[in-house]
């Protein structure tokens, strides 16, 4: 027997061998337990995965487009903010995000338009539905009816962000104050407490940084977006392209507020000039551009999720007019004849000029939205996507506003690109007389204001649009849209060619016909 083997028998006593065997077994057990703990933790924290939905409608309403990654906000913190900082909510509104016009469905953690992603903790982000699901009420008292793809007529995005910024700036936005509030909604594991402690600090820093970027839109002189509107392109200049706008946004470009568009029936729009100023002819590029506006980044934008939405909205039909309308074939025929004569060429899907840009000199609507999009921004956008599948190639700088099809036009009020005209009837009124029907208000700093109330969803079936006089619904105050503010002008789209010179009976006949679109 070799020496070494002979010695091996005398290296360990049976007790030592057994202890080693058990120690090894213990180590294995510990390793297995550790592995199980790690797996549980990994299962709990590691997946970077959004909540997904098999149903396309749910996907549209709650699915992720990637905005819940880099710019995602912790769900459980978001849920306590309206409770903790109710003084920053619009006065009298409920202590949740419906205060900003978001639509909350029963059993859902967040309103329509918010996706949820598990990335260590649950994060929320905005999606397409935040700006493209609207609601309509028959009266102040009646229950709202929700329309997918309709402009989010009640959602005040800027007020929502302003609320978050005010919370972040508050001295109570600390782990010590927020964690106990979170725990009122449910127990936090020690690991969760630790993570949320970091998350609260990070969220605060992130929101304050974002506030600094968006301050330009929140300064008192800057017209508020109000419900149903957003500045589509200026945020790019202070966020993604901030280094090229170190001097700030030039004065002439600063107001680019635009009405949310509807997003149904998209297939027929492929190739048309999209966006109000018609700066892009690609549906897909338009969609990705909107996703970046909602908070997605070029690294995280979820192409598949967006394409899935696109496929659906390509054929999503516009909603039928839900109120009483004439069945008189004569009247409708008369309306159609007027439509064919005045509207068809520019606004019918088969029209000669639909989807084309009408120079500002001709349309003469408010110029600010057009001016907000510049050649410089266009060049930056094209460079932004280099190397990515979705790279922008179709953006152009235009000189006017695009002619849009009128499908579901009843649900797209208020009208014109800046939402400055409450109803179709107003739109068929000569521009200089459009303010006559509006409400007169003394301005806070002197001077007269012509206003109408928006964001309440109460419909005016006679004039076809939202009522101008509803100040409050369910405790939530409406927003007074002031046409005298920069970018809010209701001018343009006026004159014989635009039907504003028609007789009243012709106008009513045309309006009856438009209800059928």
């Amino acid at each position, binding site marked *: 027997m070799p020496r070494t083997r002979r010695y091996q028998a*005398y290296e360990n*006593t*049976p007790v030592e061998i*057994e202890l080693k065997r058990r120690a090894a077994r213990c180590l294995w057990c510990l390793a297995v337990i550790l592995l199980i703990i790690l797996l549980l933790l990994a299962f709990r924290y590691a997946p970077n995965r959004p909540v997904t939905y098999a149903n396309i409608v749910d996907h549209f309403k709650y699915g992720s487009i990637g905005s819940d990654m880099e710019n995602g906000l912790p769900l459980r913190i978001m849920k306590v903010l309206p409770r903790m900082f109710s003084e920053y909510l619009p006065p009298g509104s409920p202590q949740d995000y419906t205060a900003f016009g978001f639509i909350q469905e029963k059993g859902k953690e967040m309103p329509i338009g918010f996706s949820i992603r598990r990335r260590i903790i649950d994060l929320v982000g905005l999606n397409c539905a935040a700006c493209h699901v609207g609601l309509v009420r028959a009266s102040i008292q009646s229950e709202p009816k929700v329309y997918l793809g309709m402009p989010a007529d009640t959602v005040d995005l800027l007020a929502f962000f302003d609320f978050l910024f005010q919370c972040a700036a508050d001295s109570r936005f600390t782990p010590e104050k927020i964690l106990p509030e979170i725990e009122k909604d449910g127990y936090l594991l020690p690991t969760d407490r630790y993570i949320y402690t970091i998350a609260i600090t990070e969220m605060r820093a992130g929101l304050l940084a974002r506030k600094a970027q968006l301050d330009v839109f929140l300064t008192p002189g800057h017209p508020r977006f109000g419900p149903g509107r957003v500045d589509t392109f200026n945020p790019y200049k202070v966020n993604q392209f901030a280094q090229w706008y170190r001097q700030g946004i030039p004065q002439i470009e600063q107001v680019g507020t635009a009405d949310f568009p509807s997003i149904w029936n998209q297939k027929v729009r492929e190739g048309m000039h999209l966006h109000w100023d018609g700066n892009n002819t690609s549906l897909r590029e338009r969609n990705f551009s909107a996703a970046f506006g909602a908070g997605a980044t070029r690294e995280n934008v979820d192409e598949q999720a967006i394409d899935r939405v696109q496929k659906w909205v390509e054929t999503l039909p516009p909603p039928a007019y839900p109120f009483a309308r004439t069945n008189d074939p004569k009247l409708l025929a008369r309306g159609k004849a007027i439509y064919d004569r005045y509207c068809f060429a520019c606004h019918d899907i088969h029209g000669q000029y639909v989807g084309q840009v009408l120079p500002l000199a001709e349309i003469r609507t408010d110029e600010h939205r057009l001016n907000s999009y510049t050649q410089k921004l266009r060049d930056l956008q094209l460079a932004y996507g280099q190397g990515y599948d979705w790279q922008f190639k179709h953006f152009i700088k235009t000189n006017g506003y695009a002619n849009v099809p009128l499908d579901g036009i009843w649900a797209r009020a208020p009208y014109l690109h800046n939402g400055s005209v409450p109803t179709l009837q107003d739109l068929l009124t000569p521009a200089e007389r459009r303010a006559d029907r509006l409400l007169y208000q003394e301005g806070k700093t002197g001077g007269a204001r012509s206003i109408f109330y928006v964001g309440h969803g109460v419909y005016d079936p006679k004039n076809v649009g939202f009522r101008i006089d509803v100040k409050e619904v369910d405790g939530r105050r409406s927003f007074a849209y002031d046409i005298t503010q920069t970018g809010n002008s209701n001018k343009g789209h006026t004159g014989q060619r635009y039907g504003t010179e028609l007789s009243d009976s012709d106008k009513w006949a045309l309006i009856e016909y438009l209800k059928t679109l």
Partner: protein
Amino acid sequence: MVFNTLFQPLKFRSFTVKNRIFRSSISGRFDNYDGSGNQARINWEVKFARGSVGAIISSYVPVNIRGRIMPNYATIDDDDKIPFWQAVGRAVHQYDCRYILQLSHSGRQQDIPGVENEFERSLSSTDRVEGFHGLISRFMTIEEIEQTIDDFAEGARRAQEAGLDGVELHGANGYLITQFLSSAINTRKDKYGGSLENRARFVRQIVKAIRKKVGHNFHLQMKISAMDYNNALFFWEKRGTTLEDSIQVCKWLVEDGVDAIHVSAGNMFPHPRNPMGDFPIEHAVRWYDVMLSSGIYTHRNYLFFRNSLLKPIFKYLWLRSEERPENIEGANTPQARAIRESIRSIDDTVPVICTGGFQTASKICHVIEQGYCDAVSIARPLIANNNMVNGYFAQGREIPQEKRCTYCNKCLLNVLENPLGCYELSRYDGDYKAMIHEVMSVYHPRPCYITDGHHSQHTVDTNISSVIGGDDAEDA
């Protein structure tokens, strides 16, 4: 008062014991490491012989080195040990005291294996880890079983050749024979495990082998744990061997030619029910350390002994199945009586000896008169009072309360590292020096020293050289 019953001679088949008091098997680590005996052992046994006990059952005597519980216990594994045991026998016989050698094998219950056994798994009827210390063992092969049976028989032959009066098989308290008998320990699947008949096969083969070797006139008795009480410490364990099992085993053994039955309890040692009494944790803290490398649970136990939060848990577990102190004396007598009554139907000449805390003459007389047993064996109370018989009982007196054994079991814990003796300071009126002096008395007289083949001068009767040399000199 006269305790006549106590002093009735007890007749075995091959010899008669002068009274009914047996010194039960107990000893300290007095002997040489290699199992050869020395003077201290003789001194130890003579203490009791001089105190007039009728017979002494030697301490645990391993039949081979593999089967010892710890080093420094004299063994009977080789013929070269015969002269020593002869010396022990002669020294004890001088006091008209009989000497019965306890043939033993530790099996897995090896408290300190010693360097000879250090790298071997101990042999047993199971390969399961023992529950208290975590002692490691393996199944014996058939060859090893046969060899061990032969070692027992050889041990008996050597005892006979040494002129001793008889042998006792240590089939109690968790040692190898118990490991085979116990339904809670034995996990063999062959003819030595399973049914009671199979579990008893090992001890019955030993008895037959011994009888074959020493004939029928050499005294052979069996010490048996009447009940395992396997769940006494760990309540979740099974109960183990029952009294009914033990009765059957005893009947078989009597049929096989065993001359007496010695009744004890418990299937490990120490056991909450043997030796009964307190568990002196402060002494365990001091002396249990010597066993730390012996088992896989010893560190756990030591932690329980040392940690003040865990200590009460251990105390509770250990003491929960104890008898109350006033019931310790004679606690095994009900089982002894059951066995006695059963075996008398086979052979009414086979006496039953019962152990368990005896130290009052009246109690001993009572249990014998009432037929619980024929004699009693005593260990701890005799350590406390070596002169129990001739100093008190023979004079018609009970031991005064303050001198009685308190069942503190300090002797039990000290034996791991110190000379065996009574370490209950209260029995010495708090005189620590007196206690140590008494404990150390086992080393007197001193052994003789052989230098250049010449014996040093010694004239004491129990001196090993004089006894081995056959020089039965009287006390000087």
